[in-house]
């Protein structure tokens, strides 16, 4: 037991900075949402208006969750829960994989494994530390809600809902880490599970039925297959139900138990899915250039990104008929919508635009990930091998930049294509497939700004590139999803590149915005290619 505690303390020592940042960001988001609701929407009428608009819009239901009457706490939970739960899930996934397969892949585990510990000691330590982290997260989030003036019992329950989702994905990641062939694939798979849980909950909520007051929506069955959906059922500020907490807890225990059992039966550094250990003896012509190498390193990851966004696009398209029926079956919704939606954009178009906005975020993420490979190459010493050959830094950077641009474009196109095709097959009406596809492509210039900024930071301050790249994307996501709610000043919201891309098919395409964004991306990338020559290679 003392070995478990020692190892858990070691993990805490290694992670204290990054986890403090995660917890403060997640709890801060909840606090900001709560403050916005209690100050900007202080009156019952204001909150009722906000909620009924949301209840009428499947896009809102899909992205946010279920409106649940109009108390400040309930509105906060509706606005903030899904995103904070996803973040808690991702935090837990990265934590677990870092301390399990990550340490094994880096060779650090052997030092620990050679001491008087069993094969599973370190896994217990990671689970203990992950549990502790999520408990702290729950408490800090609850403190934020209370500080913002929400009722105390509800605040604790809401914090617990977020922490419980984190715990569940901690255990799920521990299981995935036993199965996958490498830390990288474990991270990708477990993070995809978090995204999948969000999507499934979104589908269940979008399919949900609103009561006649339009202030409360009940989720449909798909949400039962998502731990995030279960967490939402706690309803901390209205009719509290603690059964979902027990369900999530039970799931956590089962998954963690399975992870421990599997850990006992496997070799160090090897998952149950075996890694491909051999390959071609000679390099193909693809590896003759920096572009070819960058493509080779990124292609597997790019395929996963494209599949993920294609799934998102398919869900968006497939929900078309639901969206249409929501309108047809509920005249009060139709009437409400005609008042809130400018112009004559249809509900389906609104929904499509919202979904493709998320696809744009994912496209940016794929580009950032591609660019950050440069940092890994540098820090792990492989860049040295390349740059010792007669290869200029500009060529080295350029190959990866091209692949990052291709990644961003491909991910957006995959989402647009699948949304267009599925929407057309569903015959729900709405815009033409061509228009839907174009709507996805319209986000590419804004998305490209993110890899471009990331590479600029890489050229100037390489150790910060990962934090700034992902931080910028998180900031843009918060600005886009919460900017209006939080009542942030216009100039601050305008900092997000996505504010300047056209939300087709609701809005018309503005070429000026796209051109300015593309120019910003090009200038940043060009500056990076030049500046990269001016600094030391840094481990």
């Amino acid at each position, binding site marked *: 037991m003392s070995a478990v505690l020692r190892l858990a303390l070691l993990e805490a020592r290694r992670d204290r900075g990054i986890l403090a940042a995660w917890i403060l960001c997640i709890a801060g988001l909840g606090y900001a949402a709560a403050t916005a609701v209690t100050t900007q929407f202080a009156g019952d009428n204001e909150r009722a208006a906000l909620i009924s608009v949301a209840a009428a819009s499947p896009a809102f239901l899909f992205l946010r969750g279920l409106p649940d009457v109009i108390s400040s706490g309930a509105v906060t939970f509706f606005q903030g829960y899904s995103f904070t739960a996803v973040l808690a899930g991702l935090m837990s996934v990265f934590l677990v994989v870092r301390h399990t397969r990550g340490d094994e892949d880096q060779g650090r585990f052997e030092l620990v494994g050679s001491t008087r510990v069993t094969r599973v000691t370190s896994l217990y330590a990671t689970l203990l530390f992950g549990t502790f982290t999520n408990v702290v997260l729950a408490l800090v989030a609850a403190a934020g809600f209370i500080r913002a003036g929400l009722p105390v019992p509800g605040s604790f329950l809401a914090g617990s809902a977020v922490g419980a989702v984190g715990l569940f994905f901690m255990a799920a990641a521990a299981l995935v880490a036993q199965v996958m062939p490498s830390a990288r694939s474990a991270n990708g798979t477990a993070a995809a599970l978090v995204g999948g849980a969000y999507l499934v909950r979104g589908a269940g909520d979008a399919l949900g039925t609103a009561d006649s007051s339009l202030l409360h929506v009940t989720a449909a069955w798909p949400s039962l297959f998502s731990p995030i959906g279960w967490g939402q059922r706690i309803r901390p500020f209205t009719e509290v139900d603690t059964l979902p907490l027990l369900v999530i807890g039970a799931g956590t225990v089962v998954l963690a138990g399975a992870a421990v059992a599997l850990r006992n039966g496997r070799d160090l550094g090897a998952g149950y899915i075996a890694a491909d250990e051999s390959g071609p003896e000679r390099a193909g012509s693809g590896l003759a250039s920096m572009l070819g190498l960058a493509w*080779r390193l990124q292609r597997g990851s790019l395929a996963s990104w494209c599949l993920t966004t294609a799934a998102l696009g398919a869900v968006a398209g497939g929900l078309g008929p639901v969206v249409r029926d929501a309108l047809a079956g509920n005249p009060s919704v139709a009437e409400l919508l005609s008042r809130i939606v400018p112009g004559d954009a249809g509900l389906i178009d609104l929904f499509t635009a919202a979904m493709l906005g998320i696809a744009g975020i994912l496209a940016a993420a794929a580009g950032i990930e591609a660019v950050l490979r440069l940092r890994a190459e540098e820090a792990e010493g492989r860049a040295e091998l390349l740059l010792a050959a007669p290869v200029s830094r500009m060529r080295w950077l350029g190959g990866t930049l091209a692949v990052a641009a291709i990644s961003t474009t491909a991910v957006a196109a995959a989402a647009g294509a699948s949304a267009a095709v599925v929407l057309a097959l569903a015959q729900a009406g709405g815009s033409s497939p061509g228009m839907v596809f174009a709507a996805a492509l319209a986000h590419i210039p804004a998305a490209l700004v993110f890899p471009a900024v990331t590479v600029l930071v890489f050229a100037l301050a390489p150790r910060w590139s990962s934090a700034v790249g992902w931080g910028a994307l998180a900031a843009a996501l918060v600005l886009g999803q919460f900017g209006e709610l939080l009542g942030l000043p216009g100039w601050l919201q305008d900092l997000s590149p996505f504010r300047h891309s056209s939300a087709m098919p609701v809005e018309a395409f503005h070429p000026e915005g796209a051109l300015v964004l593309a120019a910003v991306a090009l200038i940043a990338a060009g500056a990076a290619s030049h500046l990269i020559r001016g600094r030391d290679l840094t481990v």
Partner: protein
Amino acid sequence: MHADPSPVINTSRLAKNFGRTAALAGLDLSVLPGEVHGFLGPNGAGKSTTLRILLGLIRPTSGTARVFGIDPWAEPVRAHKDVAYVPGDVTLWPNLTGGEVIDLIAGLRGGADEGLRRQLIDEFDFDPRKKARTYSKGNRQKAALIAAFSRPAMLYLLDEPSSGLDPVMDAVFRRHIRRVAADGATVLLSSHILAEVEQLCDRVTIIRAGAAVESGTLAELRHLTRIRFRVTSAVKPEEMATWRGIHDLRVNGTAIEFDADAADLGYVLDALATAGITGITAAPPSLEELFMRHYGVQAGRQAGRQAGRQASHKSQAQ
């Protein structure tokens, strides 16, 4: 050999600071065409930093570095045109095979010589079909060595290249150093393995705490140093210890061991002959001893601690 050759590598008062740590503090290094130059020093003395500056990967804080007369920071591509490099800590792309890595690196330099590539893979007993993630440290090093040797270069920069090789593979490595040297290539071999340098190198530069403390042929370095004597004699050790030029005298069984300054050899031999001896051996110091003399002191320990800090810094990077 060369009448008035301009050096292939030339550094002058080269300094490099990382934050408050001075990794190099005024290093002068000159490597002539066609020589195998040993670059000897303990961990953290600044060997890798020097090589990285020579490759244009990092910029010197002050001083100059020239490779083929070119400033590698300003014109890295031109300076690297004919350089093969093996880093001290080889990391490869986990999902490429060893063969692909060799082709990639050699390809960037212009393409491998097929015959050499095959021969090297064969001699190093290397499996090029395995993914790099499965390779041990020694195998990763082999991949980098094969990539370096599979295309002739004018200059080989090797950073502790054999530290992960077993003795048999080490012999293969030494054979190929001799081969490229015979072909007229220049080699800068950084090492803390003395036997390697003793066997391979024409000249040696010893670096400590970021500066060269000694440079020359092995013969020249020995000339500067003491000779180790072991004698059996009726003379009392206490008396012998008072002789001029005698250091570190100690009694070892029936024998007396001491070091003598090269400049005082005549005097010591005369004194020994006069006093009468029944047995004597005298040997030049091994490089090992030269090394200990330079690093077995306080300054050496301090350099070692700096190395420790740098190493932990390296391992933190992901």
